Every structure is written in C-alpha cells, then in structure tokens.
C-alpha cells in the first residue's frame, strides 16, 4: 500500500512545467483584463485600485443630472443595529470612556436614550480620522453598487458635495425628520451643493483657527499668537499645519489678504500661499490631522492650526484656542446615509433625535463645537447653571457676531481649482 502511494507521488513537479503553466495563466488573465477594461464592464476586482478604476468608467457613464426623481417612501419599520461611523471626540461621553476620550458601548447618554426610546441597538464607531481615507474605505463598494455596511456617516461639506455629485447617497425622507426641518439654524441652510437638505443634515459645525500652549511659549519667552502671520515668526519645527488642505490653504489665503471662498479663489492665489508656506516646511514645519492633540500633550508643538472644539474638550488648561485677527475658516460635518444602507429609517430617526434641542444641547455641552440646532444656547446655560462655561470657551459653541463676520468657507471648489489645491498641498507635504 505504501509502495503504491509512494509511486503515485514520485513524480516531482518539473520547473519547466510550472513556469509554463503560470505563464499561460498570466497571459490569459492579461488579455482578459485588457479587453475587460476597454469595454468598461464592472468586475469587482480584489484590489481597490482595480475595481475603482474599472468601475469608475461605468460610474462616470452613469453620473446623473441632479434632477430629484420621486423615491419610494421608506417603510416605517425600525430595524437595527444602526451602524454609525463618526469622527473621534464628537459625541457626549460619560464615565470611564470620557476619561479615556474614547467611545465605549453604553457610554453616551444620547445613544443610550435613543436605544431605549426605539428599542434598537446602535453600533457607533469612531472610524473616521480623515475624509479622504474614510472615502477610500467605502468607495470600492459604492462604485460596484454594493452596500457599504454603514447606515449613517459624517463627512465634511466638500466630501458630502462630492458624494452627492457621484449619486452615492440615499435621499432623506423629510417626513421622518420633522425636528431637522424645524430646528436647523438658518446660517447652515442653503449650501449650493444641497440647497434643500435632500441628502444631508449638519452634525456639528466648527471653525479652524490657532491653538497654542501658553506654558511652552512662556518658557521660550515668545509672545502668544493672535494673528495667522504670528505663526511664521515661531520656530517652524514647533508649529504644525493641518493635512486638511482646504483649512491650511484657506488660512494661508487670509494671511495674505486674499479672498478665501469658492467663487473667488484662483490657482494663482493658491500658488502664492504655497510659496509663502514653503520656507517654513524647509525649516521643519509638519502637517498633521487630529494628532496635534498628542503633539500638544507631549510639548512637541507650541502652536498650530487647530479645529475649534478639540482643545476645548480634550486639551489641558495650558492649551488655548484663538480666533485669528485676519479671519477663520468655518466648516460643517454632515450626517449622510450612504446608498444601500440597510437601516435607512432608523438612521433618519437618529437624525431626528439629535435635532431635539435638549439632546443637541447635551451633545454640544460635551464636544464644544457649534450646534446646528436652534435654541441650544439657553438649554446649555441651564445645564451648566452650577458651573458655567468659562467666558473664553463660550464663543467656541456660540460664536459672536464679530467672529461670524470674519468667517470664510471653502465649500465646493471647481475641479480645476481643487486639483491645483491638492497638487500644491502634496508638493508641500513632500509626498
């Protein structure tokens, strides 16, 4: 018996046969791939680049004109669990999770109360660190028409505009979100990329300005920055700008006295900002995302472009946010329902839930960003009656009129300007 088995396997694979077989298979696949690409058919390839490129041709041919077609109404059945992706430090937390600055199941009163009210589970994940990298995780599925696995996501306005242009979002049934319709603050209405709120409702709004560590600056005998231009006078290896190119270049434009809004910005203006920042990069300037929080904590960074809420709710008493004299950038992060979401009605209920002024006040009181909901200021005042919010931090939640007057928004840029913005930014960041 063993003799027979030995004889069966005594033929070794010869190298020639193996190479011949592999070469034949490889050539076949290459021909198939070439012809498949030329005819622009959808093949769910195993690599993101492959499927994105192959099927983007199909998606491009299917890009719709923005005419709203009547969608069938969502059945009013609460299904779960609701899969919700959000940015870190963006929802109210209590207990150990608040101390760790990281969401854990059951640590958010907003979510816990929602789960009790509607008897459905919510899977909240702080999955979004950057718009581009999260977009890359959902793009392969959306391009091939598959569900992304998310019911609710939160993206900054320019990325929301891009998703709407690609027709990758579900239309919101306005009948299911009466709180949103009634309570959305007027300054946040009428965005050119979705004027009727068919696809989005703002989650929080925020501002980009300057953050600094007072102790480090005092030890180095340097003045506290009040203008964007002051950051050019500090040692560049102790300063960071943001990887979010719109924020960095927007503030750079304001420093040079150039207009920073989508209609007036030209590629030449952006080039001027690039040339202004380039000497700082040579002297050690870095570009970071939310990591500036850790850099401030480790005293590696003394001053930086920061997002308004972060230092207020996560920073130490040494760290301060200041609205630059030249002006600041305002942006909003928006709740969106990606196409193919399995629990669309539950997502709409959640949108409606967080636009209840009491819930919105609860969230704003923790995250220190600007709430999109009317009537929050009074309730926040009541919540903090025993220990009111310090006067320095109040404008972060409720910006005063003079700050609002100097706000600028880089909503959707034309694709040429956006291309030159991105290529100038990658040139500065060295990658």
């Amino acid at each position, binding site marked *: 018996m063993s*003799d*027979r088995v*030995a*004889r*069966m*396997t*005594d*033929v*070794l*694979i010869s190298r020639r046969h193996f190479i011949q077989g592999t070469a034949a*298979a*490889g050539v076949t*696949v*290459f021909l198939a*791939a*070439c012809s498949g*690409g*030329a005819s*622009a058919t959808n093949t769910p*390839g*195993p*690599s993101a*680049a*492959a499927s*994105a*490129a*192959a099927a*983007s*041709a*199909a998606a*491009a*041919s299917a*890009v719709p004109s923005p005419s709203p077609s009547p969608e069938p109404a969502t059945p009013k059945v609460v299904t779960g669990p609701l899969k919700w992706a959000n940015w870190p430090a963006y929802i109210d937390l209590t207990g150990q999770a608040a101390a760790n600055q990281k969401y854990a199941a059951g640590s958010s009163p907003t979510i816990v109360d929602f789960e009790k009210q509607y008897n459905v589970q919510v899977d909240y994940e702080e999955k979004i660190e950057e718009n*581009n*990298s999260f*977009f*890359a995780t959902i793009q392969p599925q959306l391009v091939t028409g598959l569900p992304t696995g998310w019911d609710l996501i939160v993206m900054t306005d320019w990325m929301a505009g891009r998703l709407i242009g690609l027709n990758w979002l579900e239309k919101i049934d306005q009948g299911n979100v009466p709180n949103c319709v009634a309570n959305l603050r007027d300054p946040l209405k009428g965005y050119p990329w979705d004027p009727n709120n068919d696809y989005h409702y703002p989650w929080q709004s925020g501002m980009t300005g300057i953050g600094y560590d007072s102790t480090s600056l005092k030890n*180095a005998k340097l003045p506290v920055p009040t203008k964007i231009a002051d950051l050019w006078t500090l*040692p560049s*290896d*102790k300063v960071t700008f943001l990887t979010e190119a719109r924020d960095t270049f927007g503030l750079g434009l304001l420093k040079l006295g150039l207009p920073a809004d989508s209609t007036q910005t030209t590629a030449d203006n952006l080039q001027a900002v690039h040339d202004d920042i380039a000497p700082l*990069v*040579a002297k*050690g*300037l*870095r570009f970071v995302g939310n*990591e500036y929080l*850790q*850099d401030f904590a*480790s*005293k*590696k960074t003394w001053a930086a472009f920061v997002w308004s809420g972060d230092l207020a709710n996560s920073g130490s008493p040494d760290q301060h946010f200041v609205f630059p004299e030249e002006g600041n950038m305002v942006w909003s992060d928006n709740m969106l329902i990606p196409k193919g979401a399995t629990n669309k009605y539950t997502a709409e209920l959640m949108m409606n839930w967080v636009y209840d002024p009491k819930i919105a006040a609860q969230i704003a009181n923790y995250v220190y960003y600007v709430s999109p909901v009317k009537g929050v200021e009074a309730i926040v005042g009541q919540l903090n009656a025993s220990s009111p919010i310090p006067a320095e931090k109040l404008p972060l939640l409720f910006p005063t009129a003079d700050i609002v007057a100097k706000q600028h928004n880089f909503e959707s840029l034309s*694709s040429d300007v956006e291309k030159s913005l*991105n*290529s100038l*930014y*990658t040139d500065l*960041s*060295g*990658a």
Partner: protein
Amino acid sequence: MTAVAPAAGRRPPIHWRRWIGVSIPYLLLAPGLIWLFVFFIYPSIEMLRISLSSGSLDTGYSLTFSTDAYVTALQKFPHQFGNSILYSALATTFTFLIGFPVAYTVAFKGGRYKNLLLFLVIAPFFTSFLIRTISWKVLLGDEGPLLSFLKHVVHVVPDGFSILGSPVAVVAGLTYNFLPFMILPLYVALEKIDPRLIEASQDLYATNWGAFRRVTLPLALPGVFAGSMLTFIPAMGDYVNATLLGNPQTQMIGNVIQSRFLVLNDYPVAAALSFILMVGILVLVVTYARALGTEQLTG
C-alpha cells in the same frame, strides 16, 4: 520502494492512477496558488493595465499604452525613493545588530527559558501596529522619558532639541516595528546549528572569535537572508512611520503612493510607482542573494 520501469522500446498506456499521481502535487498546491493568483497576480496585472492607462476618476480610464505615468514616477520622486532605500537599509542593519545578539543568546544560552524569551520578543505584537508607532511619539516626545533625561539630568542636549519629525525618529520606528521579523529567523537558523561543530572547531585550535566567524556565522546565513528580506521589503513600502514620526523631508515612497491614490486620485502614477517599487525591490533582492551565495541559503 521498487521503481516501475517500462520494457525497453515500448511505451505502455498511461494508467489512470498515474494521472492522479501526477496531479496530486498540483492539487495540494492549489489553495496556495489560487490565493496567490487572486490576491497578487491578478491585482498586479490590473495595476500594470492602469499604469498604462490615461484618464481621470470622473471620466474613467482607458488603456492607451501611454508611458507618461512611468516618466513622471521616475523623474519626480528621487528624494523619496532615496529616503525609502536609505531608511530601510539602516533599519535592516540596526535590526540585525540588535537582533543577532538576542537570537544568539536565546538559541545558545536560553536553556529552559527559551520559550519565555521568545514570547517576550513577540509579546508587543499583540498590540496594534499603529498604537505601537503612536506610543513612540510619547517616548521620543520633547519632554518624554528619553529627552527629558538628556536635557534636564545629563544636560547633553539643548532645550529646544527635538527627535520627533526627524529621520532618526523614522528609522527608530522602523527598527522597532521590524525587530521580531529579524530575531525569529535568526533564532531558527542558529538553533539548528549542532554545537558539536563548534566543539570540533575548537579542537582544531580555533579561538572563540574564530569559531564564531568561521562556523556559526556562515551556518546562520540562511537566517540572516530570511530576516533581511522580511525586514527590508516591508520597510521599503512602509508609510506609517514616516507619517507619524517624520516631517515633509523624510517622506518615503509609500507616502507618495498613498497621496497619489487617496488625495490626488492619480491612479496611473500610483500604479506606476507601485510597479517600479516592486521591480526595484526584486532587483535588489536578487543581487543580495547572489552576493550571499545561493547554495548557502538553502541551508
């Protein structure tokens, strides 16, 4: 086992069992081959096709066999290619210098603590790669354990001195993250060495150093080769360490590919860069294998 020899001059009809015998090796390899095909060969061919295409994300890509992407990729990023090669080579060298004594000690002097010591080598890997790299930001921070000691206790560096955001931090992060990949293959190779060979060399009047240089080191070469490959190749494509611990001057080719792909949506150039990186690493590996001597690598 008796060999079956056909009668001279006559070919017998091939028995169906023989077909099974011939195909069994291929069937056993099939799962591995399918995995390799689906996750490596097909994506590589798609990547090749995209690198020769032109177009954009909005208008779609069409295969035009244009080499513009390759021209851009080769001309525009010499600094980043140089960084990748330099940092990976440094990281491989440092992991070898640190890892060889560790592997040697565990293999020859470990005794009954071998398993525990090996576990300690791998234990950090139970934490995620990203968390371990971020923790280096704390360790190398301006007022972190290392620099506060050097600045305030020993006073050898000025107060404004900073390691984070420099090539030193990037190489340190790479070395740390790939250290087990060097230690484990070295340990395996050293463990296989028969200690009697070293005794024999000492009987023949070799000094300790002589025995090490002429017996232990050559026999450990397969482990050195495997460890270097497992360290150098992933380090060349790494982008996490350069992002978290570096600055715009220390960007590696992995960062360039990431930004072409994610930020600029310039897929042809990203694909061309990936291909060039793959071919470049292959050339370096073959050269290295030749230099070491391929007969010695199979042990």
